[in-house]
């Protein structure tokens, strides 16, 4: 109900009370009249009934007026592509709504280059939008609303299905190829003194490093610059040579889920060259090397580039070296985040451990890792990464190493060190057998399957290189070895008050087997007899 109709209520009631004294017909006529009036008022105020919202990827909320203060009416939700198409159908171009810059790109504001004052901007929208809609309607073409409430709707007519879009490695490579490696077409730096942009080869960075979510001073927001630059360039390309393939100019070209799926993907594009290292020894900053105790971390930079979508996965703010900001004690620049935290932050998407930890929950890994305690690394894990030379020797050693293999003995990590014959083929679990016969576990088959998964992932190979660590997925909390303790050596009766967190044997078996199956989305067994057959009825 609109505030207007709420305000009218007491008036309606007062009117009704006074009319009660008159004739019956007058009362009825009066009520009908008031009802009619309120209906007119309500529709006039733009309170149309709720309609099903149409999904569109191209919605722009016209909220430019917020620079002058709070809006009087709901912001207009504007279907941009619908207008682009209509303009094109009328044989006109973007200039109908957007003014051109000298460089050929468009001003993103509607029919103006700056926000002059509230009244002017408001009138601009109202006059131009309504006039165009009226004209189009007069020409008997499909047109837009001309009354206030049809544009300024509290419940917009459309539902945004806009998908975020970014430049991945493949798209970046396609742009490089299309522009003959002219990085300077997009990448630049800002000269504050001259208030101009310039380009330095080899110092390219991510757009987001400067163009943040909000515009500040003469540093436009990321949203503004990417639309201006991307669409500007696409439009320019097509103006120069209409036959040349180029990127989208419309909203849906980038932000529609279906069209995103059709964007050509170059698999394993060549490595981007920005003078970054192929291989690096990660260490504390040079002046802190004497304070650093743990061995350095040999880090295959190029290998990580291969699997990452973009540099920002790790280099979250600049493309500088990690220890430029993250020192042993942290700096103002790093927001107090120390080198240790930056590398080991379990909940961070940018840290080594955070990213690797995330990998553990993929289906292939979750069978074992999903059942292990989360958010904690074993003390033995340190040396898997910290395997490089001592920090004090790092400067001398830096140029000597070229690959990770030099730090890892060249053993095959995809095979157990045991003889295959020493691994039990089938294990019969009958220790609890009562209603059912022994459970038959294809022990070697399970190990083979797990080893296969490991062999298919470089990161898994690296981290399972530790001797026979794979056995510990099931044979946990006990020393690694060829003869692990039996499950019943630790798991006994359930609900032991002196050992609260350890399940009983019955629970331990089922949790371990079924827990792994659930995590790895293995649908077998569907019922109890899938693992252990029922015992034949006794006495028959």
């Amino acid at each position: 109900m609109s505030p207007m109709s709420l305000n009218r209520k007491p008036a309606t009631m007062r009117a009704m009370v006074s009319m009660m004294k008159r004739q019956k017909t007058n009362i009825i006529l009066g009520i009908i009249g008031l009802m009619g009036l309120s209906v007119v008022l309500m529709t006039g105020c733009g309170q149309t009934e709720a309609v099903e919202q149409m999904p569109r990827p191209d919605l722009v909320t016209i909220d430019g007026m917020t620079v002058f203060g709070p809006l009087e009416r709901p912001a207009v939700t504007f279907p941009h592509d619908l207008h682009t198409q209509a303009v094109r159908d009328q044989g006109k171009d973007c200039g109908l709504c957007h003014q051109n810059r000298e460089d050929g790109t468009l001003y993103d504001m509607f029919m103006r280059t700056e926000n002059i004052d509230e009244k002017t901007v408001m009138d601009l929208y109202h006059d131009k939008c309504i006039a165009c809609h009226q004209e189009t309607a007069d020409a008997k073409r499909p047109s837009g609303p001309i009354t206030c409430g049809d544009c300024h709707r509290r419940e917009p007519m459309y539902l945004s299905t806009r998908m975020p879009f970014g430049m991945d490695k493949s798209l970046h490579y396609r742009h490089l190829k299309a522009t003959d490696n002219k990085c300077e077409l997009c990448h630049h730096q800002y000269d504050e003194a001259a208030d101009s942009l310039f380009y330095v080869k080899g110092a390219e960075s991510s757009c987001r490093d400067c163009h943040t979510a909000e515009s500040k001073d003469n540093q436009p927001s990321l949203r503004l610059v990417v639309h201006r630059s991307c669409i500007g360039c696409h439009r320019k390309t097509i103006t120069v040579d209409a036959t040349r393939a180029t990127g989208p100019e419309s909203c849906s070209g980038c932000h529609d889920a279906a069209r995103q799926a059709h964007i050509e993907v170059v698999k394993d594009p060549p490595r981007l060259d920005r003078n970054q290292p192929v291989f690096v020894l990660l260490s504390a900053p040079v002046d802190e090397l004497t304070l650093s105790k743990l061995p350095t971390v040999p880090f295959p930079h190029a290998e990580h580039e291969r699997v990452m979508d973009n540099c920002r996965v790790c280099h979250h703010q600049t493309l500088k070296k990690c220890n430029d900001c993250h020192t042993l004690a942290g700096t103002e620049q790093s927001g107090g985040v120390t080198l240790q935290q930056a590398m080991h932050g379990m909940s961070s998407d940018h840290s080594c451990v955070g990213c690797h930890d995330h990998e553990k929950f993929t289906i292939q890994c979750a069978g074992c890792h999903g059942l292990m305690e989360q958010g904690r690394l074993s003390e033995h894990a340190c040396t898997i990464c910290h395997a490089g030379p001592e920090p004090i020797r790092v400067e001398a050693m830096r140029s000597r190493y070229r690959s990770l293999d030099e730090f890892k003995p060249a053993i095959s990590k995809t095979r157990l060190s045991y003889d295959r014959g020493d691994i039990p083929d089938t294990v019969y679990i009958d220790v609890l057998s009562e209603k059912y016969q022994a459970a038959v576990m294809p022990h070697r088959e399970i190990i083979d399957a797990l080893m296969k998964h490991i062999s298919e992932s470089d990161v898994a190979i690296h981290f399972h290189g530790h001797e026979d660590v794979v056995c510990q997925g099931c044979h946990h909390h006990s020393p690694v070895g060829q003869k692990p303790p039996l499950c019943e050596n630790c798991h006994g009766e359930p609900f032991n008050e002196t050992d609260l967190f350890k399940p009983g044997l019955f629970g331990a078996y089922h949790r371990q087997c079924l827990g792994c199956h659930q995590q790895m989305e293995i649908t077998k067994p569907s019922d109890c007899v899938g693992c252990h057959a029922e015992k034949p009825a006794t006495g028959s």
Partner: protein
Amino acid sequence: MSTSRRKFLQWMVAAGAGSTVVKSASAHEHFKGYPDSYGVLHDTTLCIGCRSCEKACNEVNDLPAPDKPFDDTSVLETKRRTDAKSYTVVNKYDVGEYAKGPVFRKFQCNHCLEPACASACFVGAFTKTPEGAVSYDASVCVGCRYCIIACPFDVPTYEYDEALTPRVMKCTLCEPRLKEGKLPGCVEACPMEALTFGKREDLITIARERIRKYPNRYIDHIYGEHEMGGTSWMYITGAPFEKLDMRTDLGVTPAPELTSGALSLVPMVIGVWPVLLGGLYVISKRKERMAHDEKTSAVKEAIDQTQADADAKLKAAMEKARKEKETAVEKAVTKALADAEKERGKEDK
């Protein structure tokens, strides 16, 4: 003796004062459960929906055989609730992104620390035992079924089929088995240990530890730790509770606290009034008896006094008479002696 109108009015005033005292005395104190009471922790992330618990419950409680066998998991396709023939049911839920597959939740009496059923029952058929169970005594039940309406978890059911001795039916926490040192039937049968039996305090510790160890797996909340003032049966889940049809609108206030204002009148009516009026009657009777006794003793005293007075008078009169007699005798003797002397003098002359 008949009660006068005046006396009756006095009683009413006294009763009014009495009820005020009862109300203020019943102001609720938070009850954190009996120390060392037992409970069960249900971890829905471990439950595989095998219905072993339902089967075990049916067997240990001698409940009638179900229409479909317990190993038929097709019954999970429809949402079920407890009924007179099943103290517990397992339901299946699709929770979308919160789990890789369906999630199962076992459902039974939660054995509240301060049970709504017990607070609604005016014959006291429900008791929260120090061991943890909310037990039901069919022998005193009058079949009003207020408990069924009072339960925020929709647990108790009724034997509508039973014509003569219908009972309220609900999970007993296998109280009889616990007394024999056995586990509740469902807990013992659960292959995944998705049901953990233990002291309520320990269960909370276990639940917290699981949430700490697997932060990605659990919602950071133990359902039943505080809901409705706390329950002996608690839950941890990987999906928001409302996705598992668990009420999240219950708050942490125990039911009796919410109802104690209104329900305190019930014991007043059925408990305080007879006691008070009975007491007044006794007092009044006593007064009468005392007055009677007093009067009797006064009369007796009076009689005794009179008797004593009479005796004394008699004694005095007798004394006087004796003295008078003695005097008269003396006089007579003296006179006789004098007469004789005179006679003798005459003869001598």
